[in-house]
């Protein structure tokens, strides 16, 4: 470019003592001319330049918040809680996708079994269990040891994350349940078992059992119970009837009491 802003004009522009039409010219030209930009840059206030850069560098070094974290914050969740939830290992996309696929297969199995909801009902309560295994264990969480040493580590963290897992699991299973063939009361019959198994697993974790062992034991026990009751009784869905639901409610309450009583035990590192 052959035309450049004259030095006095640049000085006037930098100081702000310039008429607007001339300023228009400078600005339109500067956008396209690196030489004139440089002429402006050498008139910079160095302290201010470095001060602004310090802010930029700080922003670069600060970890970027995940989309989930921003969403939670927009919904009014406290900052620290939002970060805790967003970094929960099993709430990452891959886990949610795996759960959605599992539930989809369970619905397909139920449809293939002539509309018998048993496959779905047996599987849905295991979903939060699998999530919790990942929620609070060394294998899944790279910050596991760090979390044990933090003020909100251990019990509180486990409860927060388990609640999040349960909420997401129930939401996904609830959506999947609407796709069941004849969705009557059976479509919701997995809810109490899901809650019960979750709390029992958490209570079992507060003993010397590791999360994985506890979840696997509770999960296997659940499957055995479902299969055995199905074989032994003539009534369909015996493990989900009114009596069974009451039993699950009682079991949940009992496990919750144990969990509360023993929560200090969880604060110690568990064997994985």
């Amino acid at each position, binding site marked *: 470019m052959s035309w450049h802003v004259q030095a006095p004009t640049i000085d006037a522009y930098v100081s702000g003592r310039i008429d607007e039409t001339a300023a*228009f010219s400078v600005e339109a030209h500067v956008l396209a001319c690196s030489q004139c930009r440089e002429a402006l840059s050498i008139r910079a206030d160095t302290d201010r330049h470095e001060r602004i850069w310090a802010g930029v560098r700080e922003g670069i070094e600060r970890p970027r918040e995940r989309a989930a974290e921003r969403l939670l914050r927009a919904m009014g969740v406290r900052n620290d809680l939002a970060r805790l939830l967003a970094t929960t290992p099993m709430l990452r996309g891959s886990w949610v996708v795996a759960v959605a696929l599992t539930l989809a297969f369970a619905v397909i199995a139920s449809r293939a079994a002539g509309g018998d909801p048993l496959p779905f009902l047996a599987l849905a309560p295991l979903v939060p269990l699998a999530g919790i295994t990942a929620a609070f264990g060394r294998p899944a969480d790279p910050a596991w040891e760090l979390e044990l040493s933090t003020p909100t580590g251990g019990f509180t963290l486990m409860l927060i994350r388990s609640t999040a897992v349960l909420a997401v699991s129930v939401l996904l299973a609830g959506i999947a349940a609407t796709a069941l063939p004849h969705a009557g009361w059976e479509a919701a019959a997995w809810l109490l078992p899901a809650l019960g198994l979750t709390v029992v697993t958490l209570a079992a974790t507060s003993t010397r059992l590791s999360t994985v062992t506890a979840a696997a034991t509770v999960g296997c026990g659940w499957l055995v119970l479902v299969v055995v009751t199905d074989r032994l009784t003539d009534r369909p869905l015996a493990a989900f009837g009114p009596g069974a639901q009451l039993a699950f409610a009682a079991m949940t309450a009992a496990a919750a009491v144990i969990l509360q009583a023993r929560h200090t035990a969880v604060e110690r590192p568990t064997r994985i």
Partner: protein
Amino acid sequence: MNRYGIEMRQGGMSGVSGPTATDQEMVAAVREGDAAALRALYDRHGTWLAIRLARRCADPAIVEEVVQDTFLAVWRGAARYRGEGEVAAWIWGIAIRRLIDRLRTRRQTAELPERPDLEPSAEELVLLGIEHGDLASAMGRLSPELRAVIQATALDGLTTREAAHLLGIPPGTVKTRLMRARRELREALA
């Protein structure tokens, strides 16, 4: 592309933060996570940006925040630069919108439905100038209010609504002032 490679070898500079690298190359390096390239980009563009923003916002603290926000946005959004056109214009586009965002939270400007057909394009103004010559003196005779809307729309590349937020006036007023400014310019240049 080849030419730049040769230049860099001849200059013996360490990568894209050297003085011979083009803005486009620096943005490409920033996209790869090169903080030194961002610093070099900031050294080239931070100053004029701050001066230009200061002409549109009297509060130096806000100007500093906007420059900061802008280069953070460059760092995070370098992938969105399409690789063509002036990097300076791209940066300015980010900065002026960040400034408007800042001002928007401060003073609530009433939003009115807009009719986009009233805005003169920058090309239109340039054509006016080329055809009729003395644009500068014609602009000089405009009232400051009218010049401000010409600046916001034609020079800064803002929409009516964005200009309204920047100037703190209703979009309807921006439109009437634009029409008046165009009429006055036409008459002065005829």
